[in-house]
């Protein structure tokens, strides 16, 4: 009788990273070729599309959302706290940025407006996250639940604002605010809808978050929270404060992403579901794909963004499959990525019982 057991394979990091990437790429190619054959397409064309997607600069438009959000999430997840609320935090961040840009005099001052908006976006995201963690710390309410629920609340809160008090004057009654003042917009890269400033800020944040989580005492304690709140408390650091801090940072970074969405892409506030657009949920995936390592987040954000573009690309041109099939293919690619991770991290031992 055949018996299968699975053993962890522990390889040094400089082997495991290239190995995982290689296996992921192989998995990607296999799934693309299989999918192409299923839908009667030329695998060569599909792969060209895939390569083009990975080289398309539009991915930075997604990276600039995924990167900060997933960074924040990786802080919360490292602390063993379930923040499923990135979506809502993005949305309120966008709300905060719009508030400063549109309804305060700061918005019309160059540089100051941008910085103030983004700082307020940070703050709003943080407040939104803190609400959930305070309920967790002081009432023991599952933070995954509150964050998930607060996503919807954030949607409808923004909806309320854009349908009501914030509805623009020059928008013919459509649910959106007026455009934010020109001084408050971040300059886009010509021909694309992303801006370099938030992108570089995010890269900088990546390094900062890494140093924070792995080099400072507070950061290490945050990671320690995932083992035991009690033990952290017993090591001389207030675990409640740490939990709040971790969540706050997580929310703040998501809020930042939301703020840049307004300053760069939308340039006005639109209903909540259109700001978040599920990117907050996708960021959860980005965070886990990077195994919660902040330095790997840019890479996984890049990977996921490229697949986003790929799902658009295969809908048109010579391939021309519907959105549904594109989703199925992308989903399968993600699943294969998981398999590749397994191959890189575990060994399978087969035995025949004598």
């Amino acid at each position, binding site marked *: 009788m055949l*018996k*299968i*057991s699975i*053993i*962890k394979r*522990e390889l040094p990091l400089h082997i495991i990273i290239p190995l995982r990437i290689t296996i992921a790429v192989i998995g990607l190619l296999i799934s693309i070729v299989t999918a192409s054959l299923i839908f009667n397409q030329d695998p060569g064309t599909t792969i060209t599309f895939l390569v083009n997607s990975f080289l398309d600069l539009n991915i930075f438009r997604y990276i600039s959302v995924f990167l900060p959000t997933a960074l924040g999430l990786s802080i919360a997840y490292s602390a063993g706290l379930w923040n499923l609320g990135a979506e809502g935090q993005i949305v309120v961040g966008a709300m905060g940025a719009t508030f400063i840009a549109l309804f305060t005099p700061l918005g019309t001052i160059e540089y100051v407006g941008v910085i103030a908006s983004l700082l307020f976006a940070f703050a709003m995201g943080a407040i939104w996250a803190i609400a959930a963690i305070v309920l967790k710390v002081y009432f023991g309410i599952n933070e995954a639940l509150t964050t998930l629920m607060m996503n919807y609340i954030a949607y409808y809160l923004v909806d309320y604002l854009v349908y009501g008090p914030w509805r623009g004057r020059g928008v013919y009654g459509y649910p959106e605010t007026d455009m934010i003042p020109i001084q408050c917009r971040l300059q886009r890269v010509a021909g694309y809808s992303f801006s370099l400033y938030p992108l570089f800020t995010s890269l900088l944040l990546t390094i900062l978050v890494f140093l924070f989580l792995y080099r400072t*005492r507070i950061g*290490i*304690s945050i*990671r*320690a929270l*995932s*083992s*035991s709140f*009690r*033990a*952290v*408390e*017993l*090591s*001389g*650091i*207030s*675990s409640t404060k740490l939990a709040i801090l971790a969540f706050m940072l997580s929310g703040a970074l998501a809020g930042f992403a939301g703020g840049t969405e307004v300053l760069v892409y939308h340039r006005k506030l639109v209903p909540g579901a259109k700001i978040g657009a599920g990117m907050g949920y996708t960021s959860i995936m980005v965070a886990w794909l990077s195994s919660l390592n902040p330095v790997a987040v840019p890479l996984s954000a890049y990977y996921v963004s490229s697949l986003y573009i790929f799902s658009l690309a295969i809908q048109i041109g010579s391939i021309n499959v519907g959105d549904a099939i594109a989703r199925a293919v992308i989903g399968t690619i993600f699943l294969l990525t998981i398999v590749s991770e397994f191959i890189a991290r575990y060994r399978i*031992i087969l*035995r025949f*019982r*004598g």
Partner: protein
Amino acid sequence: MSNVIRVVEISKRFGDIIALDNISLNISSGEIVAVLGENGSGKSTLAKILYGLYTPDRGYIEVNGKQQVFLSPADAKKYGIVMVSQRPQLIDELTVLENISLFLNKPLNKIYNDINIFLQEFNIRINIASPIHTLSYTERQYIEMAKALLARPRLLIVDEATTYLPQSMKIKFFEMMKRIVATNGSIIFITHKIPEALEFSTRIIVLRRGRIVGEFDSNNISLDELRRVMFGETAIIQTTKQAQDIPIIKDAILKINNVLVEDEYGKKAVENVSLDVKQGEIVGVVGIAGNGQRELCETIIGLRKVKKGQILFEGRDITHIPPNKRIAIGLYYIPEDPFRDGVFLNLTVAENIKIFSQRKIERKAFQDIISKLNIIPANPGVKVHKLSGGNVQKVVLSRIFINIPKVIVAYNPTRMLDEYSSRLVASTLTKFASLGGSVLLFSEDLDEALAMGNRIAVMSRGKVIGIYNYTAINRSELEKVMVAYA
């Protein structure tokens, strides 16, 4: 005598750590084999492979001449192999009854009476319908034992589970073990206590660094010889009671006044306890497990709320401040269960040490601490979950080298340690006291408390029923007191 179970050339690695290297072992029926080794020598890994928790990288287990691979304890149990774990492996949220029923794979009502009869035989008073998390650590160990014995195993693996049982319980347990042996079962008895091994086993296997370094007949081997084989050239630290020579001065640094604490269910767990610890003094608190020591200990360190009374630290009222603030002012805690309260398994050794340090520490300092405490493997970058139980406790201990505390509250700090390590802990604590620190030592091991304490407080039913000075202690009298009120 036929071989019941053979372990054939088993090797097991965890990443870069070789836990077991080519181990072969025969266990005949009717035999008690002691597996002796210091912390991290691979004893527990061997036990877990036998029980199917780990699958060996190489080699196999032979049962009745047939080669077997156990993928799960369920497989092992099919062949009558049962393990009593080092730490009770029970589901906290389920009741005692449900746990045992899961283990025995029998319906609840069928085993209800069996369990009660069994517990009565051991004179253990536990309501088996209560969830595990309401029990004390020791009570959990009783259940862990009880469930294994109730399964009537052919091979019973006892993984250091008996070390801290009260003497009476221990004797009863060994009687039960002998009964198993008498009915042609066999026992693997894993321990780091050499006397225990000598006393109860028929054969002794010594493991070191994953290899078998000696196999002896229990009757023909001396304790010193075994110690030499077990620890190699490592010198044994002699614990000395230096504290008694130093005059204890000044006022109490830690004062507990008439404290009343309730347990999770609103029952009084600690009632009107008053204690004080002076500077440079070690106060041992002894008592039968489950008499409020855990609650008191957690109260002092701040994990539990005080219902009445107050706790003073250097004259300052700390009754209501959170644990982290108590740590900051120098009140440290060494937990019984380092895995739960002491360390962070997902962090490295260095990071674990770093968390406690309010100052920045040099890279070299890590190495110092590691070598001082003999943590194996001696690599600060290794994740703690790769360390064995004893080494984990050492990581916990490391904190007192980083920031010098004023008072250490220790709760069964040597429970998981081998002889060498526990002496290391004991000597560290006494040394700490001799330098002017104070220790409040909760211990279920009377010998340990007697060896270290300047004063001994006896707890029973949540009350301190007597405080004895070191000079005025009579061990047997103490035991009587402990039992009388329990």
